[in-house]
């Protein structure tokens, strides 16, 4: 493993005059699951969009397997082997489940391979199989999330980027989906970059993590270390020292160490 699967260096991304990401660097090695944590508006989604080419960075590089891919068209980036599962699923509501999955394989021409991967997706997400012909818009939130991940998988990527897969799902479903993500990583050798707010589940399955705040990285380390950090406990896991009164409202200053 000489070079990382994905490396971002000093990325700066703007929305008009507003700098949404101010110099962010990160690294994902092959075969790893890496988590990026952060509150709303921290710039996590922008980061993924910059990586997949949906947004252009004004500064910095995105390296995929050592090759610069920043500021290219998203379809080109996708062809290089990066699949982006966007926040809020974004399945095609008027297409059927099977058509949605076929859209994932849009760039591929190996009929047999596609068929095989389709079966793999149905194996991982058995609930989708009986719904093959159903319009995706009629699926439940959890099923749509599975479909979105399945669609991402259908492009046979080297790197799967997931934007808040736990969004709006029941705790039981979150566990189920994260189990599948772990299996995809282990069994299919998929490298995964996971953006999450649900720090607990995300850090449980990932090896390393980063914490973003107002457009910059404030912390990085192994998931184990992050789970034990005081600030992560208080600000992401909601485990705060309740103090002597048993009901503390004031917030500690974040130190990120």
């Amino acid at each position: 493993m000489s070079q990382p699967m994905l490396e971002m260096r000093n990325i700066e991304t703007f929305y008009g005059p507003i700098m949404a990401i101010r110099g962010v660097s990160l690294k994902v090695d092959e075969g790893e699951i890496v988590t990026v944590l952060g509150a709303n508006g921290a710039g996590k989604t922008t980061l993924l969009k910059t990586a997949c080419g949906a947004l252009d960075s004004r500064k910095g590089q995105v390296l995929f397997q050592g090759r610069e891919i920043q500021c290219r068209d998203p379809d080109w980036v996708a062809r290089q082997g990066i699949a982006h599962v966007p926040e809020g699923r974004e399945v095609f509501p008027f297409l059927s489940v099977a058509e949605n999955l076929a859209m994932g394989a849009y760039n591929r021409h190996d009929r047999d391979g596609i068929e095989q991967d389709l079966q793999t997706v149905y194996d991982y997400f058995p609930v989708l199989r009986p719904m093959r012909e159903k319009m995706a818009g009629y699926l439940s939130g959890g099923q749509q999330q599975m479909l979105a991940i399945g669609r991402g998988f259908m492009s046979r990527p080297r790197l799967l980027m997931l934007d808040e897969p736990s969004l709006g799902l029941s705790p039981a479903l979150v566990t189920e989906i994260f189990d599948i993500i772990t299996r995809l990583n282990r069994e299919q050798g998929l490298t995964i970059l996971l953006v999450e707010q649900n720090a607990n589940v995300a850090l449980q399955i990932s090896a390393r993590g980063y914490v973003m705040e107002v457009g910059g990285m404030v912390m990085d380390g192994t998931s184990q270390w992050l789970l034990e950090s005081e600030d992560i406990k208080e600000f992401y896991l909601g485990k705060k020292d309740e103090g002597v009164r048993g009901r503390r409202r004031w917030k500690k200053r974040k130190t990120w160490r």
Partner: protein
Amino acid sequence: MTESHPLTIVDGCDTLPKLFLKKSVERGDKIAMREKDFGIWQSFSWDDYRQYALDIAHGLLALGLQRGDVISIQSEDCKEWLFADMGGGLCGAVVNGIYPTYQPPQVQHALSDSNCRFLFLEDEEQLDKYLEIEDQLPRVEQVFVFDWKGLRGFEHARVQPIEKLYETGRAYGEAHPGQVEDIVSRGDPEDLAILVYTSGTTGMPKGAMLPQRYIMFQMSIAEYLEQVGEDEILTYLPLCHVAERILSAWIPVAMGSTINFAESPETVARDLQELSPTFVFAVPRVWEKFYSRVTTAMSEATWIGRKAFQWATAVGMRRADALIAGKSPGGLLEFQFRLADALVLSNIKKLLGLDRARSLASGAAPISEALLKWYLAMGLPIKEAYGQTETGVISSTLEDRYRLGTVGEAVPGADIRIDDNGEILIRCLGQFQGYLNLPDKTAETLVDGWVHTGDVGELDEEGNLTITDRLKDIIITAGGKNVTPSLMENELKFSPYISDAVVIGDQRKYLTCLIMIDQENVEHYAQTQAIPFTDYRSLCNRPEILELIQGEVDRVNTGFSQVEKVKKFRLIDVLLTAEDEELTPTMKLKRSFVSQKYGELIEHMYTS
């Protein structure tokens, strides 16, 4: 101390409460202070100030406060801080300010050492600190909280919102008219007025006892220096630090200045920009920060902007050279400077919020000469004042006399002497009475009426004082050479990339240094140079950043002799905050604490 001190009288008064009652009535509805509430500046007049202070005084009397009892305030700067401070003074209490960044063990020490009876706390956060150590503080009878937010439904026999005290006070005041006036009139300049716990670098903080005459002496100096009059002032350093207390609590009473509370310690730069005060006092760290901001902004400016700035700086520097040499800059140079000011420098002043400042001062820590010269070149002459908790301000550089590097002449009423060890001794009308409960420490510091400052320095033939360093900080290397670390440290801090530095080398073969980087500027540098980093620690460990700092160290080293050069350095890769013990409340690295805590890192510089 048996010797009696000559009195300092300001406006016919010999104590602060007397003067406060007199002046606040005279000034009536003139604005005394402003504080931001939900983003809008709210004004409070001198009448309001007196009324609130009287309510607190009456309230405390109603609760049985006796003359000389101690009240403590633990809060960020806010109007209630001053109300409680002044109110305490009016009823004869001794006021003890506690740093809001203090953690429970330090709070416990400051409260029990001072025998505190009544405690004023800012908010829920400070209250929680108290509740943690409540059972160790049986002497604290009542606790008042300025901001009750988050405490609705909280009930505790000893804890009340400040409004309750105002109410009690109002009722008591109506029933006992004239009592406060009576107490105030019986006040004596020798009465203990406030306790200031000095940020002890070793062991627990010591409580310096400052009498009323100390306050009066500081006011008389303010009158003499004529630096502050009816000015706008920004209050942002902790009020428990004597420098801010002099500036924001006492000088306004004497001179009628208007104080403006910074919204929070983090927003000082913005508040300054918004207010553009006419008098600015800052600690060197703030002046260094402003300088870095300008340097960084200029490095990003357009080509034309950069050239214009370079030209303006060059003109300013030539003018500064002339002024320092005691010459008049001459017509042409003065004309060029006016032009530079109009075209370039005025914008920089606006950026920093110094465009209305007619007077600037630095103090509370040593400042680099190069930095002072840069400000002079910008057309912002900074006066440097010197003093310490035990003496108050006792010297200052004067208007139109640019003796950079010195802290000026002794003010009237203060004598400076250098003893055989080179230590600066001070005797002044306002010196402290000793350390509370520490007769031994007092005897060490106050000898035959002279305060031993612990600073080493020199007096020139004009009587200007130059500070070399702290006596105990002077390094004697293994080779027997005396080195004053602060000289090197100040030069290092002048670098926009270095926020603070501690030079080490006592009993060692060579000098080394621990450096705290300036996060903002170094991050910016990394970003422009495309040096990938994630968090602060990873930034500090980037080889490119180590090289950058090495470059700064090398540059500074060239000005020093072989033994004084720093051979190796390490970066402190933890982002420190005011809550951390490594820093003093004014954000300076504590030498002894840091050398102990990072002992391993230091050893590494001598073994590898």
